[in-house]
Protein backbone atom coordinates (compact mmCIF):
# COMPACT_ATOMS: atom_id res chain seq x y z
CA UNK A 1 0.00 0.00 0.00
CA UNK A 2 2.71 2.48 1.02
CA UNK A 3 4.60 1.69 -2.12
CA UNK A 4 1.56 2.44 -4.25
CA UNK A 5 1.01 5.84 -2.64
CA UNK A 6 4.71 6.68 -2.73
CA UNK A 7 4.72 5.99 -6.45
CA UNK A 8 1.62 8.13 -6.92
CA UNK A 9 3.18 10.95 -4.91
CA UNK A 10 6.44 10.80 -6.86
CA UNK A 11 4.59 10.78 -10.17
CA UNK A 12 2.54 13.84 -9.26
CA UNK A 13 5.66 15.61 -8.01
CA UNK A 14 7.32 14.90 -11.33
CA UNK A 15 4.39 16.59 -13.01
CA UNK A 16 4.99 19.62 -10.80
CA UNK A 17 1.63 19.48 -9.08
CA UNK A 18 1.79 21.56 -5.93
CA UNK A 19 2.24 19.99 -2.53
CA UNK A 20 -1.22 20.77 -1.15
CA UNK A 21 -2.99 19.23 -4.10
CA UNK A 22 -0.81 16.12 -3.97
CA UNK A 23 -1.59 15.71 -0.28
CA UNK A 24 -5.29 16.13 -0.94
CA UNK A 25 -5.32 13.58 -3.77
CA UNK A 26 -3.27 11.06 -1.77
CA UNK A 27 -5.62 11.42 1.21
CA UNK A 28 -8.69 10.98 -0.98
CA UNK A 29 -7.24 7.89 -2.65
CA UNK A 30 -6.21 6.51 0.73
CA UNK A 31 -9.84 6.89 1.77
CA UNK A 32 -10.96 4.88 -1.28
CA UNK A 33 -8.28 2.32 -0.49
CA UNK A 34 -9.49 1.86 3.10
CA UNK A 35 -13.09 1.51 1.94
CA UNK A 36 -12.21 -1.17 -0.60
CA UNK A 37 -10.16 -2.93 2.04
CA UNK A 38 -13.18 -2.97 4.34
CA UNK A 39 -15.21 -4.43 1.49
CA UNK A 40 -12.84 -7.39 1.43
CA UNK A 41 -10.68 -6.59 -1.58
CA UNK A 42 -7.00 -7.51 -1.49
CA UNK A 43 -4.12 -5.05 -1.87
CA UNK A 44 -3.51 -6.19 -5.41
CA UNK A 45 -7.17 -5.97 -6.43
CA UNK A 46 -7.43 -2.45 -5.03
CA UNK A 47 -4.33 -1.16 -6.80
CA UNK A 48 -5.64 -2.56 -10.08
CA UNK A 49 -9.02 -0.94 -9.41
CA UNK A 50 -7.57 2.46 -8.53
CA UNK A 51 -5.27 2.43 -11.56
CA UNK A 52 -1.64 3.36 -12.14
CA UNK A 53 -0.29 6.79 -11.12
CA UNK A 54 -0.27 7.71 -14.79
CA UNK A 55 -3.95 6.77 -15.19
CA UNK A 56 -4.87 8.75 -12.08
CA UNK A 57 -2.91 11.76 -13.31
CA UNK A 58 -4.54 11.57 -16.74
CA UNK A 59 -8.02 11.41 -15.25
CA UNK A 60 -7.32 14.40 -12.98
CA UNK A 61 -5.59 16.50 -15.62
CA UNK A 62 -8.42 19.02 -16.01
CA UNK A 63 -8.67 19.65 -12.29
CA UNK A 64 -5.18 20.87 -11.37
CA UNK A 65 -4.26 24.41 -10.53
CA UNK A 66 -0.53 24.75 -10.97
CA UNK A 67 1.46 26.50 -8.32
CA UNK A 68 1.83 30.15 -9.11
CA UNK A 69 5.42 31.33 -8.83
CA UNK A 70 6.79 34.58 -10.14
CA UNK A 71 7.40 33.85 -13.80
CA UNK A 72 10.67 35.76 -14.03
CA UNK A 73 12.27 33.62 -11.30
CA UNK A 74 11.45 30.42 -13.15
CA UNK A 75 12.71 31.88 -16.38
CA UNK A 76 16.00 33.13 -14.95
CA UNK A 77 16.80 29.69 -13.53
CA UNK A 78 15.86 27.99 -16.80
CA UNK A 79 17.78 30.47 -18.94
CA UNK A 80 20.96 30.36 -16.87
CA UNK A 81 22.61 27.26 -18.45
CA UNK A 82 22.20 28.69 -21.92
CA UNK A 83 23.45 32.11 -20.95
CA UNK A 84 26.42 30.37 -19.31
CA UNK A 85 27.28 28.51 -22.52
CA UNK A 86 27.08 31.69 -24.60
CA UNK A 87 29.38 33.59 -22.21
CA UNK A 88 31.75 30.62 -21.97
CA UNK A 89 32.13 30.18 -25.72
CA UNK A 90 32.46 33.91 -26.43
CA UNK A 91 35.10 34.39 -23.70
CA UNK A 92 36.91 31.24 -24.74
CA UNK A 93 36.86 31.87 -28.45
CA UNK A 94 37.58 35.60 -28.59
CA UNK A 95 39.82 36.01 -25.51
CA UNK A 96 41.14 32.44 -25.40
CA UNK A 97 40.05 32.43 -21.76
CA UNK A 98 38.63 28.88 -21.68
CA UNK A 99 40.24 28.22 -18.33
CA UNK A 100 38.77 30.84 -16.02
CA UNK A 101 35.67 31.18 -18.22
CA UNK A 102 34.34 27.78 -17.10
CA UNK A 103 33.29 29.35 -13.78
CA UNK A 104 30.24 30.79 -15.58
CA UNK A 105 28.72 27.31 -15.35
CA UNK A 106 28.32 27.98 -11.65
CA UNK A 107 25.64 30.43 -12.74
CA UNK A 108 23.07 27.62 -12.94
CA UNK A 109 23.30 26.30 -9.38
CA UNK A 110 23.74 29.89 -8.20
CA UNK A 111 20.48 31.12 -9.74
CA UNK A 112 18.71 28.01 -8.49
CA UNK A 113 19.90 28.80 -4.97
CA UNK A 114 19.03 32.48 -5.29
CA UNK A 115 15.54 31.73 -6.58
CA UNK A 116 15.01 28.61 -4.54
CA UNK A 117 12.32 26.67 -6.31
CA UNK A 118 11.87 23.91 -3.78
CA UNK A 119 12.92 21.51 -6.51
CA UNK A 120 16.50 22.62 -6.61
CA UNK A 121 18.09 19.28 -7.33
CA UNK A 122 15.67 18.48 -10.14
CA UNK A 123 16.22 21.82 -11.87
CA UNK A 124 19.99 21.66 -11.55
CA UNK A 125 20.02 18.10 -12.92
CA UNK A 126 17.86 19.11 -15.87
CA UNK A 127 20.10 22.05 -16.65
CA UNK A 128 23.23 19.95 -16.37
CA UNK A 129 21.97 17.61 -19.10
CA UNK A 130 22.05 20.51 -21.56
CA UNK A 131 25.35 21.79 -20.29
CA UNK A 132 26.72 18.23 -20.62
CA UNK A 133 25.67 18.03 -24.26
CA UNK A 134 27.28 21.36 -25.03
CA UNK A 135 30.51 20.47 -23.25
CA UNK A 136 30.61 17.17 -25.14
CA UNK A 137 30.29 19.20 -28.31
CA UNK A 138 33.25 21.37 -27.35
CA UNK A 139 35.30 18.28 -26.52
CA UNK A 140 34.46 16.77 -29.92
CA UNK A 141 35.70 19.95 -31.54
CA UNK A 142 38.94 20.28 -29.57
CA UNK A 143 39.83 16.62 -29.87
CA UNK A 144 38.69 15.49 -33.27
CA UNK A 145 36.84 17.85 -35.56
CA UNK A 146 37.02 21.38 -36.94
CA UNK A 147 34.26 23.77 -35.96
CA UNK A 148 32.93 23.46 -39.47
CA UNK A 149 32.06 19.80 -38.92
CA UNK A 150 31.76 19.54 -35.15
CA UNK A 151 28.39 21.31 -35.20
CA UNK A 152 26.90 18.21 -36.81
CA UNK A 153 27.37 16.51 -33.46
CA UNK A 154 25.63 19.41 -31.80
CA UNK A 155 22.60 19.40 -34.11
CA UNK A 156 22.24 15.62 -33.80
CA UNK A 157 22.22 15.60 -30.00
CA UNK A 158 20.86 18.93 -28.83
CA UNK A 159 17.70 19.31 -30.90
CA UNK A 160 16.28 15.84 -30.17
CA UNK A 161 17.20 16.36 -26.49
CA UNK A 162 15.21 19.58 -26.37
CA UNK A 163 12.19 17.90 -27.85
CA UNK A 164 12.57 14.91 -25.56
CA UNK A 165 12.92 17.29 -22.61
CA UNK A 166 9.52 18.79 -23.30
CA UNK A 167 7.03 16.39 -21.74
CA UNK A 168 4.21 17.56 -23.94
CA UNK A 169 6.01 16.74 -27.14
CA UNK A 170 4.82 13.50 -28.60
CA UNK A 171 7.13 10.82 -29.90
CA UNK A 172 6.01 11.40 -33.46
CA UNK A 173 7.05 15.06 -33.17
CA UNK A 174 10.54 14.00 -32.08
CA UNK A 175 10.79 11.47 -34.90
CA UNK A 176 9.59 14.05 -37.44
CA UNK A 177 12.05 16.64 -36.15
CA UNK A 178 14.86 14.08 -36.19
CA UNK A 179 14.06 13.08 -39.77
CA UNK A 180 14.36 16.72 -40.85
CA UNK A 181 17.69 17.09 -39.04
CA UNK A 182 18.99 13.90 -40.68
CA UNK A 183 17.89 15.15 -44.10
CA UNK A 184 19.65 18.51 -43.68
CA UNK A 185 22.87 16.83 -42.56
CA UNK A 186 22.68 14.27 -45.33
CA UNK A 187 22.07 16.94 -47.95
CA UNK A 188 24.97 19.13 -46.80
CA UNK A 189 27.34 16.19 -46.55
CA UNK A 190 26.36 14.98 -50.04
CA UNK A 191 26.83 18.47 -51.52
CA UNK A 192 30.24 18.79 -49.85
CA UNK A 193 31.11 15.37 -51.26
CA UNK A 194 30.23 16.74 -54.73
CA UNK A 195 27.30 14.40 -55.24
CA UNK A 196 24.93 15.83 -57.85
CA UNK A 197 22.27 18.09 -56.39
CA UNK A 198 19.20 16.21 -57.67
CA UNK A 199 20.43 13.09 -55.89
CA UNK A 200 21.32 15.04 -52.73
CA UNK A 201 17.84 16.53 -52.77
CA UNK A 202 16.36 13.07 -52.34
CA UNK A 203 17.43 13.40 -48.68
CA UNK A 204 14.38 15.60 -48.13
CA UNK A 205 12.08 12.76 -49.15
CA UNK A 206 12.74 11.22 -45.73
CA UNK A 207 11.17 14.00 -43.60
CA UNK A 208 8.42 14.43 -46.18
CA UNK A 209 7.41 10.77 -45.87
CA UNK A 210 7.78 10.82 -42.08
CA UNK A 211 5.72 14.01 -41.75
CA UNK A 212 2.93 12.71 -43.96
CA UNK A 213 2.92 9.37 -42.15
CA UNK A 214 2.99 10.95 -38.67
CA UNK A 215 0.34 13.60 -39.45
CA UNK A 216 2.57 16.04 -37.60
CA UNK A 217 -0.11 17.82 -35.57
CA UNK A 218 2.18 19.42 -32.98
CA UNK A 219 3.62 21.94 -35.38
CA UNK A 220 0.74 21.75 -37.74
CA UNK A 221 1.31 19.31 -40.53
CA UNK A 222 -2.21 17.98 -40.15
CA UNK A 223 -3.44 19.35 -43.39
CA UNK A 224 -6.92 18.16 -44.13
CA UNK A 225 -8.76 20.42 -46.46
CA UNK A 226 -9.43 23.68 -48.26
CA UNK A 227 -7.38 26.78 -48.54
CA UNK A 228 -4.70 25.65 -46.07
CA UNK A 229 -3.98 22.60 -48.18
CA UNK A 230 -3.62 24.74 -51.29
CA UNK A 231 -1.30 27.23 -49.54
CA UNK A 232 0.94 24.50 -48.18
CA UNK A 233 1.15 22.51 -51.40
CA UNK A 234 1.79 25.69 -53.38
CA UNK A 235 4.55 26.73 -50.98
CA UNK A 236 6.26 23.34 -51.44
CA UNK A 237 6.13 23.71 -55.22
CA UNK A 238 7.23 27.37 -55.23
CA UNK A 239 10.14 26.63 -52.90
CA UNK A 240 11.30 23.80 -55.10
CA UNK A 241 11.14 26.03 -58.16
CA UNK A 242 12.89 28.90 -56.34
CA UNK A 243 15.59 26.54 -55.11
CA UNK A 244 16.28 25.29 -58.62
CA UNK A 245 16.16 28.81 -60.13
CA UNK A 246 18.48 30.34 -57.50
CA UNK A 247 20.73 27.31 -57.56
CA UNK A 248 21.16 27.55 -61.33
CA UNK A 249 21.35 31.36 -61.37
CA UNK A 250 24.12 31.57 -58.77
CA UNK A 251 25.54 28.09 -59.37
CA UNK A 252 25.26 27.60 -55.67
CA UNK A 253 23.47 24.59 -54.22
CA UNK A 254 25.28 24.52 -50.91
CA UNK A 255 23.56 27.66 -49.61
CA UNK A 256 20.19 27.87 -51.31
CA UNK A 257 18.97 24.52 -49.96
CA UNK A 258 17.59 26.59 -47.08
CA UNK A 259 14.75 27.71 -49.36
CA UNK A 260 13.41 24.20 -48.85
CA UNK A 261 12.85 25.03 -45.18
CA UNK A 262 10.31 27.72 -46.11
CA UNK A 263 7.32 25.45 -46.85
CA UNK A 264 7.76 23.79 -43.46
CA UNK A 265 7.70 27.21 -41.83
CA UNK A 266 4.66 28.24 -43.88
CA UNK A 267 2.88 25.06 -42.78
CA UNK A 268 3.52 25.96 -39.16
CA UNK A 269 2.22 29.50 -39.72
CA UNK A 270 -0.89 28.29 -41.55
CA UNK A 271 -1.73 25.56 -39.07
CA UNK A 272 -0.80 27.41 -35.91
CA UNK A 273 -3.59 27.47 -33.36
CA UNK A 274 -4.05 30.20 -30.75
CA UNK A 275 -1.85 29.70 -27.67
CA UNK A 276 0.57 27.46 -29.57
CA UNK A 277 4.24 28.23 -29.24
CA UNK A 278 4.59 29.78 -32.68
CA UNK A 279 8.06 31.33 -32.35
CA UNK A 280 9.39 28.21 -30.64
CA UNK A 281 7.98 26.05 -33.43
CA UNK A 282 9.65 28.25 -36.06
CA UNK A 283 12.93 28.62 -34.20
CA UNK A 284 14.66 25.37 -35.30
CA UNK A 285 14.34 26.58 -38.88
CA UNK A 286 15.34 30.18 -38.13
CA UNK A 287 18.29 28.97 -36.04
CA UNK A 288 19.46 26.76 -38.89
CA UNK A 289 19.30 29.69 -41.32
CA UNK A 290 21.17 32.03 -38.93
CA UNK A 291 23.74 29.36 -38.10
CA UNK A 292 24.37 28.34 -41.68
CA UNK A 293 24.43 31.90 -43.04
CA UNK A 294 26.98 33.11 -40.46
CA UNK A 295 29.11 30.05 -41.06
CA UNK A 296 28.81 30.08 -44.84
CA UNK A 297 29.42 33.78 -45.45
CA UNK A 298 31.76 34.66 -42.59
CA UNK A 299 33.27 31.29 -41.76
CA UNK A 300 32.06 31.86 -38.21
CA UNK A 301 31.20 28.20 -37.55
CA UNK A 302 32.91 28.39 -34.18
CA UNK A 303 30.30 30.74 -32.76
CA UNK A 304 27.38 30.53 -35.18
CA UNK A 305 26.17 27.26 -33.64
CA UNK A 306 25.12 29.38 -30.66
CA UNK A 307 22.09 30.22 -32.84
CA UNK A 308 20.68 26.82 -31.86
CA UNK A 309 20.47 28.02 -28.30
CA UNK A 310 17.68 30.29 -29.54
CA UNK A 311 15.42 27.21 -29.58
CA UNK A 312 15.44 26.51 -25.82
CA UNK A 313 15.69 30.22 -25.07
CA UNK A 314 12.50 31.07 -26.97
CA UNK A 315 10.79 27.98 -25.59
CA UNK A 316 11.51 29.22 -22.06
CA UNK A 317 10.58 32.83 -22.80
CA UNK A 318 7.42 31.90 -24.70
CA UNK A 319 6.44 29.28 -22.11
CA UNK A 320 3.60 29.93 -19.74
CA UNK A 321 4.53 28.96 -16.20
CA UNK A 322 1.03 29.16 -14.78
CA UNK A 323 -1.71 26.84 -15.94
CA UNK A 324 -5.26 27.79 -15.17
CA UNK A 325 -7.93 25.26 -14.27
CA UNK A 326 -8.91 23.70 -17.54
CA UNK A 327 -12.54 22.70 -17.87
CA UNK A 328 -11.65 20.06 -20.41
CA UNK A 329 -14.10 17.55 -19.02
CA UNK A 330 -16.89 20.01 -19.39
CA UNK A 331 -16.74 20.54 -23.14
Amino acid at each position, binding site marked *: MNNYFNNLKEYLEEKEINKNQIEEIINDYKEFYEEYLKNGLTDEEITIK*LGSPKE*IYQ*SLKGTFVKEQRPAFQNKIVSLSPFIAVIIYVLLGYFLDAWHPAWVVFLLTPLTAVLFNQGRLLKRVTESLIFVGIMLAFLVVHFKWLEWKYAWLFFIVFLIPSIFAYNNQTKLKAIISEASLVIAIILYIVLVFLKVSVPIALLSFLLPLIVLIYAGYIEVGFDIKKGIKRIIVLTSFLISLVLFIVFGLMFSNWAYFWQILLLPFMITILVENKPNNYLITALMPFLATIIFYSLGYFYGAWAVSWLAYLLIPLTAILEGKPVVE*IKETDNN
Partner: protein
Amino acid sequence: MITQFKKGIVELCVLKVVSVQDLYGFEVIEKLSEPLSVNENTIYPILRRLTNQGLFTTYEKSSSSGAKRKYYEITESGKQSLKEKLEEWYQFSKNIKLILGGNKNE
Protein backbone atom coordinates in the same frame (compact mmCIF):
# COMPACT_ATOMS: atom_id res chain seq x y z
CA MET B 1 -21.51 6.04 -25.62
CA ILE B 2 -19.78 9.30 -26.54
CA THR B 3 -17.31 10.09 -23.75
CA GLN B 4 -18.04 13.79 -23.32
CA PHE B 5 -21.76 13.13 -23.41
CA LYS B 6 -21.38 10.45 -20.77
CA LYS B 7 -19.25 12.70 -18.60
CA GLY B 8 -21.97 15.36 -18.71
CA ILE B 9 -24.55 12.83 -17.54
CA VAL B 10 -22.28 11.49 -14.79
CA GLU B 11 -21.73 15.05 -13.60
CA LEU B 12 -25.47 15.64 -13.49
CA CYS B 13 -25.91 12.44 -11.45
CA VAL B 14 -23.11 13.41 -9.06
CA LEU B 15 -24.78 16.78 -8.49
CA LYS B 16 -28.10 15.06 -7.94
CA VAL B 17 -27.00 12.42 -5.42
CA VAL B 18 -25.04 14.95 -3.37
CA SER B 19 -28.01 17.34 -3.44
CA VAL B 20 -30.17 14.70 -1.78
CA GLN B 21 -27.73 14.10 1.05
CA ASP B 22 -24.12 14.90 1.95
CA LEU B 23 -21.96 11.99 0.84
CA TYR B 24 -18.32 10.97 1.15
CA GLY B 25 -16.36 10.14 -2.00
CA PHE B 26 -16.65 6.40 -1.79
CA GLU B 27 -20.42 6.60 -1.26
CA VAL B 28 -20.80 8.62 -4.46
CA ILE B 29 -18.72 6.03 -6.28
CA GLU B 30 -20.79 3.16 -4.84
CA LYS B 31 -24.06 4.80 -5.81
CA LEU B 32 -23.07 5.57 -9.38
CA SER B 33 -20.40 3.14 -10.51
CA GLU B 34 -22.71 0.22 -11.26
CA PRO B 35 -25.70 1.90 -12.91
CA LEU B 36 -23.49 4.21 -14.99
CA SER B 37 -20.61 1.76 -15.59
CA VAL B 38 -17.98 4.20 -14.34
CA ASN B 39 -15.19 3.96 -11.76
CA GLU B 40 -13.48 6.25 -9.25
CA ASN B 41 -11.21 7.67 -11.96
CA THR B 42 -14.29 9.13 -13.63
CA ILE B 43 -16.19 10.22 -10.53
CA TYR B 44 -13.35 11.58 -8.39
CA PRO B 45 -12.17 14.16 -10.99
CA ILE B 46 -15.78 15.35 -11.25
CA LEU B 47 -16.00 15.74 -7.47
CA ARG B 48 -12.76 17.72 -7.51
CA ARG B 49 -13.84 19.91 -10.38
CA LEU B 50 -17.27 20.66 -8.90
CA THR B 51 -15.54 21.56 -5.64
CA ASN B 52 -13.04 23.81 -7.49
CA GLN B 53 -15.98 25.52 -9.19
CA GLY B 54 -17.65 26.17 -5.85
CA LEU B 55 -20.63 23.89 -6.55
CA PHE B 56 -19.60 21.66 -3.64
CA THR B 57 -17.92 22.33 -0.34
CA THR B 58 -16.22 19.65 1.72
CA TYR B 59 -15.90 18.86 5.40
CA GLU B 60 -14.39 16.02 7.38
CA LYS B 61 -16.23 13.66 9.67
CA SER B 62 -15.05 10.53 11.45
CA SER B 63 -16.67 7.19 10.68
CA SER B 64 -17.79 4.78 13.41
CA SER B 65 -14.40 3.07 13.12
CA GLY B 66 -12.63 6.39 13.67
CA ALA B 67 -11.38 6.86 10.11
CA LYS B 68 -11.75 10.37 8.72
CA ARG B 69 -13.97 10.80 5.70
CA LYS B 70 -14.30 13.76 3.37
CA TYR B 71 -17.93 14.67 2.83
CA TYR B 72 -19.22 16.65 -0.13
CA GLU B 73 -22.05 19.13 0.37
CA ILE B 74 -23.86 21.00 -2.39
CA THR B 75 -23.73 24.82 -2.27
CA GLU B 76 -26.38 27.31 -3.40
CA SER B 77 -24.66 27.76 -6.75
CA GLY B 78 -24.46 23.96 -6.97
CA LYS B 79 -28.23 23.77 -6.51
CA GLN B 80 -28.72 26.42 -9.18
CA SER B 81 -26.41 24.58 -11.56
CA LEU B 82 -28.26 21.30 -10.89
CA LYS B 83 -31.59 22.98 -11.64
CA GLU B 84 -30.30 24.35 -14.96
CA LYS B 85 -28.71 21.05 -15.95
CA LEU B 86 -31.88 19.11 -15.08
CA GLU B 87 -33.98 21.44 -17.24
CA GLU B 88 -31.51 20.97 -20.10
CA TRP B 89 -31.62 17.22 -19.59
CA TYR B 90 -35.44 17.02 -19.55
CA GLN B 91 -35.66 19.11 -22.71
CA PHE B 92 -32.97 17.01 -24.36
CA SER B 93 -34.54 13.67 -23.43
CA LYS B 94 -37.95 14.93 -24.55
CA ASN B 95 -36.48 15.76 -27.95
CA ILE B 96 -34.76 12.40 -28.17
CA LYS B 97 -38.03 10.67 -27.33
CA LEU B 98 -39.68 12.58 -30.15
CA ILE B 99 -37.03 11.44 -32.58
CA LEU B 100 -36.75 7.83 -31.43
CA GLY B 101 -40.27 7.25 -30.16
CA GLY B 102 -41.83 7.15 -33.64
CA ASN B 103 -45.10 8.57 -32.38
CA LYS B 104 -46.30 11.07 -34.97
CA ASN B 105 -48.90 12.56 -32.60
CA GLU B 106 -46.35 13.74 -30.08
